[in-house]
């Protein structure tokens, strides 16, 4: 990250605007991703959506859907996402973008990427940050993770991928609640809130969901209103949560996932911040599952937005102005096995976080 990469002055491009939103739909095998997509794509507001699906081992988006909706589809028909699709996804996105510019496919205004159930969604998210051509034209809007109410508790106890899928989500959709017991659903909700207190949790039956809950989750303007910014930074970054380790209290299950928010009362030096994050990403990159921040950087009029998944961070981008009087920097982490104290100590060591300032 370099602060010089942050957004340009007012007559240039808004770093948040004018990019085609991408929603990543992930979830373990059989969690209902295809059912959800089928329903979503039939919604009138989705008439110009494109969808990139992976057919490996799962029910595919079939011809019925192609015929009953106006979407143009880009169908990935290769194997497992976790191995090879990162490259193919890049190619596919570039391909449909080029065809869009040439007028050879519909002028899609949104893309859904369905990952394989076995996939780690992090590489997909990273692709959108690290491929500069794609990052110029697309933005990650949200990660939607589907969790099957019937089977998920067992999967969360025994498998690492479902935990990671839940940990990096912006939206957690609990599916099949109609055939699971209510106690089971309640327990699953608690487990998910432990893993990811940042994500909105919704219950979904037969893929029926209000698309408004799944779109326009990311920032779309450097003049973002206070309420939207608050939703974006999430509950851990809310001032009323200062001093609390997490919304759900100490975890009762050893998923190894930890979430916390660091607050900084005084403006940060960009160099200190960058140093800390470089150390963190170098040493523990794979365990930084999701990082979001609004930073008060010395010399900047508005907050600088930070977003990262593991070792890949989007270029920092400036918002035009603070939306309220609370101008403290806040940095939200969802990690695998990185405790709050370690990150605090690191920031202290480089002088970015003073004891008095830390909470």
């Amino acid at each position, binding site marked *: 990250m370099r602060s010089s990469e942050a957004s340009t002055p007012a*007559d240039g491009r808004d770093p948040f605007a004018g990019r085609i939103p991408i929603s990543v739909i992930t979830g373990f095998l059989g969690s209902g991703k295809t059912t959800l997509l089928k329903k979503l794509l039939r919604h009138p507001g989705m008439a110009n959506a494109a969808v990139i699906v992976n057919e490996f081992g799962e029910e595919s988006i079939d011809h019925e859907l*192609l015929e009953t909706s106006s979407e143009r589809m880009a*169908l990935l028909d290769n194997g497992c996402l976790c191995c090879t699709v990162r490259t193919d996804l890049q190619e596919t996105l570039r391909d449909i973008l080029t065809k869009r*510019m040439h*007028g050879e496919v519909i002028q899609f205004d949104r893309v859904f990427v369905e990952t394989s159930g076995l996939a780690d969604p992090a590489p997909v998210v990273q692709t959108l940050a690290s491929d500069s051509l794609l990052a110029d034209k697309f933005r990650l809007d949200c990660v939607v993770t589907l969790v099957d109410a019937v089977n998920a508790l067992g999967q969360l106890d025994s498998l690492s991928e479902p935990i990671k899928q839940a940990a990096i989500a912006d939206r957690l959709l609990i599916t099949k609640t109609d055939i699971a017991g209510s106690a089971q659903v309640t327990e699953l909700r608690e487990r998910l809130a432990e893993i990811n207190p940042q994500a909105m949790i919704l219950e979904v039956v037969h893929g029926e969901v209000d698309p408004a809950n799944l779109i326009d989750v990311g920032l779309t303007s450097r003049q973002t209103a206070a309420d939207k910014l608050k939703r974006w930074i999430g509950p851990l970054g809310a001032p009323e949560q200062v001093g609390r380790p997490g919304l759900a209290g100490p975890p009762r299950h050893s998923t190894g996932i930890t979430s916390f928010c660091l607050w900084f009362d005084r403006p940060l030096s960009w160099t200190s911040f960058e140093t800390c994050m470089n150390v963190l990403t170098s040493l523990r990159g794979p365990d930084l599952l999701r990082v979001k921040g609004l930073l008060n950087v010395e010399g900047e009029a508005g907050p600088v937005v930070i977003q990262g998944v593991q070792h890949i961070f989007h270029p920092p981008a400036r918002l035009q102005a603070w939306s309220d009087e609370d101008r403290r920097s806040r940095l939200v982490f969802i990690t695998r096995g990185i405790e709050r104290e370690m990150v605090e100590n690191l920031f202290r060591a480089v002088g970015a976080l003073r004891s008095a300032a830390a909470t």
Partner: protein
Amino acid sequence: MSTTINVGSQADRTLSLNMTLLSHHELDGFGGVGEGVAMQITKDGRHIMWLAHESAPKNFTAVDVSDPRKPKMIVQTDLPHAQMRSNSLEVSGDILAVAYQTKEWGLKPAGFDLFDISTPEKPKHIVHFDASGPYSRGAHCLWFVDGETVHMASGAPDFQPRDSKDDQFYRIIDVRNPTKPTEVGRWWYPGTKEGDSAPPVRRMPKFDSGYRMHNCNVYPERPDRAYIGYIDGGAIILDISDRSNPKLVSNWRHSPPNTGFVHTVMPLFGPQLLIVTDECTKDDGADWPKMTWVVDNRDETNPVPISTFPLPPAEIFAKRGGRYGSHNLHENPPVKAARKSEKIILATFFNGGLRAFDVSHPYQPTEVAYYVPGAPKMSPKGAVQINDAYWDDRGVVFCVDRFAGGLYALEMNI
């Protein structure tokens, strides 16, 4: 591997990226607009768009775009006869200047008119500046942004070109007294006037379009410079500190090997760049490439091209119908009603529509938005031919079709 379902690049389909249509006005069936697109903010605060028609029978049209979602045509005027066109206009304050070009030498009216548009519904004619002559078609294009001077591409009664295609040159007209416009200076490409001591110019081998002026742009940042597209003569910077005696500063030429027709030379003073367009004048890609150039102007005596705006392939767009290639820019006119940007450039490409480019990294300009309307009804080319563009002070983007489509108002989200 992926498969996509192609719908083909069809001219009836609207293509858009980061631009949304707010409204479309067909100008009561006279939707052919030239390259005169200017905005007036009236004393009562209305935004009035003034449009010069591409050809007869209409002269100019004004549309109240105060609510860009509900444009209202408030006046539309006729030309005195069909052997002429207006094509170009500019607005400064409440004065409208309209160019007149005839189809043949010797016809009238040829030159320009000034109108008082303080009541835009009722333009009041102030004066006609006569540029007709035995070798003159009058004025093709003019620049009038300071209320004092009309810079125009025009013939003159006393100018005889060696080649008939070289009949319009640079004329500077003082209109500080709008009832008595007076020529204060002129410049023509050496060798193009009968009797010049300079040798005749080298004609373009493939398409000989002429050594004559098209656009002239003069800005308050450099009132001593005129930036001129001189068609086959290339991009020209003139020192006009002494208006009675303009002097050549530089002449950047890239044709041949290209096919000439330099149209607009727009300076960006902060980054010291020129944005230079070559107008496409042939259908079906016959004169491709017609590019928009980014030129390093740090040393104005030696402009150096460093990049071109990235465009969709000619193989695809040339087949959509009519012309495909560069033409006009939103020229950052130094008037209250216009948005100015030295980072985002709006450019028009006939059937390639309106496109916005980010030149923050001038070696690598990127396209950030486009709008290509589907073919307008009655379009003689079977495709839109977006001719000119305007970006107003509110951020609303406008573009016009050359033949039938009229006026499109757009919201840009970049």
